[in-house]
């Protein structure tokens, strides 16, 4: 999760960053991705639906879109001048048949130790 781009931004699901105090508060930042089912993966998935178990193709898709949503959120936070995002939550919703949205939101803050 901690790749180069996000290294300077601390992400947590807590109210603050442990060991540091919140100096400034920038409000809500958010990022979302909408993804559709992939035809090729869908065919594989329908085979897998017979025997059950993990759908690896979809898991990868979910992971990618989760990263993408987080990245967009972090981008928004850095634009505001924040160096941490606290109280992060994920949310999913289906937009249309076979189309799903993954949504990440949190509070952008500036912290200092």
């Amino acid at each position: 999760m901690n790749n180069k781009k996000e290294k300077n931004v601390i992400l947590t699901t807590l109210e603050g960053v442990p060991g540091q105090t919140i100096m400034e508060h920038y409000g809500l930042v958010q990022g979302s991705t909408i993804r559709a089912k992939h035809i090729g993966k869908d065919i594989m998935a329908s085979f897998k639906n017979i025997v059950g178990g993990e759908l690896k193709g979809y898991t990868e898709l979910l992971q990618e879109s989760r990263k993408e949503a987080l990245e967009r959120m972090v981008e928004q936070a850095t634009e505001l001048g924040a160096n941490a995002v606290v109280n992060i939550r994920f949310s999913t919703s289906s937009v249309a048949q076979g189309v799903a949205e993954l949504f990440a939101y949190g509070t952008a803050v500036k912290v200092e130790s």
Partner: protein
Amino acid sequence: MDALVQILFFVVLLILGYFWGRYFEKRHYKSILRREKKTLNIPIVNFGAKQSLIDVQEAALFAGSVVISIDYFKMISAAFRNLVGGRVTVYESLLDRGRREALLRMKEDAIKWGANQILNVRLETATIGGSSGNNSGPGSIEVIAYGTGVK
């Protein structure tokens, strides 16, 4: 003749789903139990809003996700259960497996990073319809488990 082929196809799918589904589920549970035992030393803790934060050096977000599907036999048996109502036990094991697997992936990711505690873990579940074509309820679920690892 056409109907006979269709029935035969249905029965084959049912049998295939029953045996392979059971086999995969057993194997999955075995791996879940083994990994849960291995990661038992890292506690998962939830904090209230008024509680002061613990004193640690570093914190980072970790997430684990999984998309897991139900087998054909269970799908049909759930459809029958829908007629009479009541507990759909076949779906319970699906959700249980999905959540535990997602939690484990998050935990393993955090352990690799060197976490000694995981705080404020949340779970998010969504259904992503059955296989294309038939519309027989949720065929698969996706679970995201996320929390803050600290060290």
